[in-house]
């Protein structure tokens, strides 16, 4: 099994054990299906109207599927807003920051969860409280520091800020997983003469790898969607992230509803694709902190 021993495996049903479907259950199924479709309706509208010509929009309105679908709006917005650059900015900064977060988080959690150093409850407590601090209570000092350190309008600044901001969250999650780490394995390693480093690299890390991957995915998406910090620290167009760039440039480049839909679609698409690919990891990560 690829899950850690600390996680409980979700109960799965064998298909042969499906319960019989009554009429009421079909009605319920239909109801739930309609609910899901309604939930996804905005995305559907964005897709339909992003490929609609202004002519079709005037004649058919926003609800209908376009009679003459075209990609020209999407292409135009892609070029005008320099979408590839923004995509690249978002991706590499989110990834680098996630790497920093997981690395630092793991080291810190290791000391807390395995090393069980003194004062660890206090440290975890501070981290938990830090969780709740709103970014507005941090942003002006960060903006000030960025200017003084020559990091203003520099993507490195958000890599550092995202990376370090996430340490509290990552430490908390990883240490709660490490708390349940089987003591026998650690004892055996100690008897073999392992010091802390060897234990971390040879014993703990291999077992924790899947968990760390999951947390990386979570943090990556979280960084990707960030808005306030890039808004304040990245004024020039070339340094914008997707989340920031689309929000700011929508008024600039578009006056037509179909063009606006194209912009919104491009902004949402990377996240949706990412979600579809990494769904399982993401779901696991979201639930990790909740089950104690």
């Amino acid at each position, binding site marked *: 099994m690829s899950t850690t021993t600390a996680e409980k495996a979700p109960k799965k049903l064998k298909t042969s054990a499906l319960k019989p479907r009554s009429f009421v259950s079909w009605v319920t199924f239909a109801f739930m299906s309609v609910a899901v479709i309604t939930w996804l309706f905005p995305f559907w509208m964005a897709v339909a109207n992003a490929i609609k010509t202004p002519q079709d929009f005037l004649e058919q309105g926003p609800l209908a599927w376009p009679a003459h679908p075209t990609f020209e709006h999407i292409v135009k917005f892609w070029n005008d807003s320099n979408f590839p650059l923004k995509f690249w900015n978002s991706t590499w900064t989110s990834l680098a920051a996630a*790497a920093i977060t997981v690395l630092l988080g793991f080291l810190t959690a290791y000391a807390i969860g395995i090393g069980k150093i003194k004062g660890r409850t206090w440290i975890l407590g501070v981290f938990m409280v830090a969780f709740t601090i709103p970014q507005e209570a941090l942003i002006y000092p960060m903006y000030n520091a960025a200017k003084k350190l020559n990091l203003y309008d*520099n993507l490195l600044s958000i890599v550092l800020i995202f990376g370090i901001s996430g340490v509290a969250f990552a430490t908390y999650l990883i240490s709660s997983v490490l708390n349940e780490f089987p003591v026998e394995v650690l004892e055996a390693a100690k008897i073999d003469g392992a010091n802390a480093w060897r234990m971390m690299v040879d014993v703990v890390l291999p077992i924790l790898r899947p968990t*760390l991957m999951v947390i990386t995915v979570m943090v990556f998406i979280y960084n990707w969607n960030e808005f306030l910090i890039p808004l304040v620290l990245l004024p020039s167009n070339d340094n914008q992230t997707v989340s920031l760039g689309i929000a*700011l440039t929508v008024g600039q480049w578009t006056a037509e509803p179909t063009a606006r839909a194209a912009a919104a679609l491009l902004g949402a698409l990377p996240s949706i694709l990412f979600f579809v690919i990494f769904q399982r990891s993401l779901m696991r990560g979201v639930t990790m902190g909740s089950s104690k």
Partner: protein
Amino acid sequence: MKFNKKTGARVAATAVAAALAMGSLAGCAPAGSDTFTVWWYEKDTAMAKTWDAALKELGQKHPNVKIKFELKTWDQIQKAGNAILDSDKAPDLAEWNKGNATAGTAAAAGLLVDLKDYAAKYGWDTKLPSSAKLYGQYDDKGLMGSGNLYGIPSYGEYVSWFYNKDLFKKYGVEVPTTPEELDNVLATLKSQGAVQAFGGGGYQNVHMAYALAVSQADQQWVANFQQFKGDVDWSKWEYAANKIADWRAKGYFEKKASGVSPDDAVAGFQAGKYPLILGGTWLDQTTADKAKFDWGKFQNPGTLSVGSAGNLLVIPSRSKNKDLAAEFIDLVLSTKYQNMLGNEGGLPLLADQAALTNPVTQKSYSVFDAIVKADGLAMYPDWPVPGYYDVQLAAGTKLVADGDAAAYVKTIKDFYDKGKAELQ
């Protein structure tokens, strides 16, 4: 891919190293006199076309300079412009919003170059009419109207009514010359099911309120309101708010105007769906391009009009290419480019009237000329205090939605009083 701990560590290390490398490289962008960074937020306007051409000529004159242009938005400068000026990412030359709230605070903070020497060198002092120059002058408290010269205006702008001549004929109304006639026009239109286009959810509500207020005011009132020369007579604002509430009650604009953006309203007018709209000269050229009907402009009836010298060209104190920036400004002020601005449909300050052939400019210029001759420019309402624009916008949207004139006046008066106390 087999992801064991070794590859994992290697990937992580590479990622961090790459990040650091990228970050530091980005920070090492060639700064120095071989790059010339320019910002403005004109898009598709006559100014954009003219400045583009002037920038090209500057590039030809200095072939070893790399010209880096960035298109910003008015909103970006309004909301956070000073933050950028105070960093080493400040551009070498920029278009800037005029007024206490933007250029004023920047000037007072020492973020803009005092253009005194360049003005003397190039003769801007004598070229620019004093009524235009004052928009670029700020005192040590950052109040507009007097003091050192920090920004150069190169065009004019004003707000007036655009109207669809064909629809006016169809509905049997004429261009009004007094506020009462304007009301009658709106009433006649309404009786036949036509209303003005109104982007009440955006900047149009800000301009509408001020346009109505200053239509009842004089230059002394403007000086009091904008430059704190005296106490503000708020009855003009009450007139404006009550008028908007009145129009709302009578249905002279759409019930849901507070949810309509100016872009949408303008698009509707240019598509021929509405007989008139209150708009600025920045709409001249696009209207000429898009409107398939005969159109014209008329001054908002009353004493003064919303308008001023156009946005400023400024040289940030942190500019690394101040001389080049001054050269560009001089190009823009030259007759060649001022004429070009006029012929592209803009409102130049220093053009050779005889050389203006664009019929759109002529349409706009005649109204502008009349206003300027009557000393009728009243500036813009959000200039006096920082953050005023956001407050007026939000309050205006609410006024358009619920017609509560008293609440509107109270909100904008309170914010003004607070801001004024801090600036003085």
